[in-house]
């Protein structure tokens, strides 16, 4: 019989049945934060470019995708994706029921919650090519391997880093 420890960290993926508007995403993230026990968290979804990336309208601005500011746990940041999936690591299993209740409070529709392994633990070649040797391994799995390096936004308790100079 395999016994699992309830003191080990667990990874969870939350998939709402609809894509979230910024206000709902903010409410959900704040509820999740209020539940506590988060080691790391990432939001995932389709890209929201600031201008038309290709085609005859290339370069035309997309005003709807600009200034999508949300404030989570007192830190404001700009959304670059339509929030469709949230992956997070919790300190231990005791935070799981609270997380489910937080999602139920914040989301007006159904959602799926899965436990599994969603962050990789070893550096990939892409990670190495882009960032060199990653000292803080918590960052592994939080980085979109296809995103440009200057597009990365990392929020931590210390500071907010948003490198997004260019309009695309």
């Amino acid at each position, binding site marked *: 019989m395999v016994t699992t420890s309830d003191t080990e960290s667990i990874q969870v993926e939350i998939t709402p049945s*609809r894509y979230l508007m910024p206000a709902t995403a903010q409410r959900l993230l704040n509820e999740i934060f209020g539940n506590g026990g988060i080691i790391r968290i990432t939001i995932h979804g*389709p890209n929201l470019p600031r201008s038309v990336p290709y085609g*005859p309208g290339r370069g035309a601005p997309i005003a709807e995708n600009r200034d999508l500011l949300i404030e989570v746990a007192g830190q404001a940041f700009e959304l670059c994706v339509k929030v469709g999936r949230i992956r997070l690591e919790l300190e231990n299993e005791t935070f799981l029921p609270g997380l489910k209740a937080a999602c139920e409070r914040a989301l007006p529709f159904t959602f799926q919650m899965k436990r599994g392994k969603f962050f990789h633990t070893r550096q990939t070649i892409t990670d190495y090519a882009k960032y060199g040797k990653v000292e803080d391994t918590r960052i592994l799995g939080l980085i979109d391997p296809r995103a440009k390096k200057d597009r990365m936004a990392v929020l931590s308790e210390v500071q907010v880093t948003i490198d997004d100079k260019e309009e695309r």
Partner: protein
Amino acid sequence: MAYTPQFYPGSTSVGINRRKHMSGNLEKLRDIPEADVVAIMGHRAPGADYSSTHPPLKEMGEPDCPIRQIVTPTAGAAAGDRVRYSQWTDSMYFAPAIPYWRSYWGAINCKGCDPGTLSGRQIIEARERDIEAYTKAQYDSEMTDVALCSMRGCTVHGHSLRLEENGMQFDMLSRTEMGADGNVYGIKDQVGIPLDRKINLGKPMSEAEAKKRTTIFRADGVPMCGKVGARKYDEAVDALHHMWELRSKWGFRPE
């Protein structure tokens, strides 16, 4: 007895809808002004002249050809219009049309058009004034739900993604938006260039209405086999098996 084409087998609601799409016997749900359709297509400004690739056929002096005498040219071909396109993306979440059925509709009912079917989008090319009429017919009929279907010349992804909170199909370029009054508004043309005014496309279908009018078989809607637990599969599956058999067994003839 006069022959009536059957188009598609099956007695499920999806089978019936597919027959309706192919026959062109569609219900008209809305009336979007022609100028608005032209603006969303984005090929010419509403009211502007049509650009042409050749002089009108009457002025050209056509060669003596029996086929040309039999076939009446379309309005666009007679005037020598350029070939233009309109491209549609239909959500997998019970959109009324799907690429294949837009193509069947075009190929069967629209003269002088070239439908192209892709996994997530469907394009029809035709002479400009013809494609404008065909696009308006698609917009006005039950083939289109303004929330689940949209005209997208580029960045078409969204058909296989979850819907947005307000029930709209996801669009990276935000070409349409849900207004506070519950109507869907077109704010950009099909390639994402902002329009000078908002175009009211009307109210979207309810979820139940979309499921009623859809041509998509889905396990959580109407499955292709028909009623779950029925003693016999729906005719659509029988016909599909029959076609598969003909293609697989007798299509292969090494000689």
